[in-house]
């Protein structure tokens, strides 16, 4: 059975699309047939981050409206085998998605893929609701600051009440926390919440901590999921995150500031 994984946050700009691209690429690299679906209709940018914006012909909305079939709309990644993306439409608005349409598309994808990663738009309105409705797992992306944590908390409430699993009284959506743009030095100065604080407030399982990293911007400029930049801290952190999701135990790296540690050691 294909698993549907929604990447969601409530707050905008926290790293959902970055995470969707990296996570999808990581699952595919581990041998799982994976498709990343862009639910951000009207503001599509998953295709940009994955470097296939020039290959978009048909999109999610075309498929829902029966103007194209899934195979015409899916874009196979050129670097990673087993990876595809279903782009969003840039010209429509969020109302172009319907619940039945989304269900039909996900059912179609489930025939060919092991993982369906849904990149949610920001907010808690219709688009975000549709992105999470059919989820089996949720990656809740949070920045270590109060407003992002509050929005994630709100989203967790919706995951436990407004999803198909919740409505049918099935096993709840499995919730995983991903803290992104983490900067240990700023945590040290008290400018950001610590991972411990975030975990305590949200009380869900911590899947990964992604450091604030210039590699993310470089990768997105290059149209490449940052996880493929294996030398970068963010790439490694995403690799660990995917491995944990697939059941491996890995310690959390990047929780402390390298420079900070140095200066501590040498009395700097």
């Amino acid at each position, binding site marked *: 059975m294909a698993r549907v994984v929604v990447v969601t946050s409530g707050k905008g700009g926290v790293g959902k699309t970055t995470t969707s691209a990296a996570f999808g690429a990581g699952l595919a690299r581990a041998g799982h047939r994976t498709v990343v679906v862009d639910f951000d209709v009207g503001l599509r940018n998953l295709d940009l981050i994955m470097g296939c914006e020039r290959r978009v012909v048909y999109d999610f909305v075309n498929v829902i409206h029966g103007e194209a079939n899934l195979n015409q709309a899916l874009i196979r990644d050129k670097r990673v085998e087993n990876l595809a993306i279903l782009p969003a439409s840039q010209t429509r608005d969020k109302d172009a998605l319907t619940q039945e349409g989304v269900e039909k598309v996900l059912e179609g994808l489930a025939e060919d893929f092991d993982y369906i990663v849904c990149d949610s738009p920001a907010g808690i309105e219709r688009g975000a609701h549709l992105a999470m409705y059919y989820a089996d797992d949720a990656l809740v992306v949070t920045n270590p600051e109060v407003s992002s944590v*509050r*929005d994630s*908390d*709100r989203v*967790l*409430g*919706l995951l*436990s*009440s407004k999803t198909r699993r919740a409505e049918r009284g099935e096993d709840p959506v499995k919730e995983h926390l991903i803290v992104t743009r983490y900067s240990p030095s700023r945590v040290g100065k008290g400018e950001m919440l610590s991972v411990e604080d975030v975990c*305590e*407030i949200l*009380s869900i399982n911590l899947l990964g901590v992604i450091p604030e990293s210039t590699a993310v911007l470089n990768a997105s400029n290059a149209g490449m999921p940052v996880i493929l930049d294996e030398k970068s801290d963010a790439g490694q952190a995403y690799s660990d995150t995917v491995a944990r999701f697939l059941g491996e135990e890995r310690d959390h790296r990047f929780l402390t500031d390298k420079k900070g540690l140095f200066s501590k050691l040498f009395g700097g």
Partner: protein
Amino acid sequence: MAIEIKGRMGTFMVLRMLTADTAEVLRQLDGHLSTAPDLLSGVPLVLAPADGLSVTAEMLRKVVLGLKERGFLQVGVTNVSESLASAADLGLMRNLAAPSREKPVAAAVAAGPAQVVSQPVRSGQQIYARGGDLVVTAPVSAGAEIMADGHIHVYNTLRGRALAGVQGATEARIFCTDQRAELLAIAGHYLLSDQIDPALSGISTMAWLKGDLLQIQSALNPGG
């Protein structure tokens, strides 16, 4: 056996009509519903026009229609004549002492079954234990709201709003093992977080009402 007749105690709501302006009655009701949508839905309701209010069957019908549109279970009417009640097609409840506005009578702490919640109560969620106590064993987030007709117990961190005795039970109390609430209220008397002694933050506390003032103390150190 075709039927079974059982006496059962239950909670019902009395809606006191203080004006003959039915539109205003419904408008104010909508105001209440917008802040607490769950507060009254599905509850049996008795309409009680205030003493001295000249009510007509037409007025009662209008209000009843409005109530039905808002999802209330209609039970009956009180404090009107039998002929008026039957003209409005409503059952008349006798011997129902409507609380007078002049000297409010404190409602007793509700004695219904407690509602137990073991899932986190998240920002934006609202839980209301009608007719009894509320016991929460998971965290209550900032931006969440928990309410009970009776006592509230939170065996975890309380960061949101907790309102006990929401139907007026001044005896209701709020207990929690890690108090960081945004607001604590009992029978409508409340304290905001910045009115709560910081020394009481992050510890087990109990809140109760002394006259009109909400009291909070460490639950581990009662008396002090």
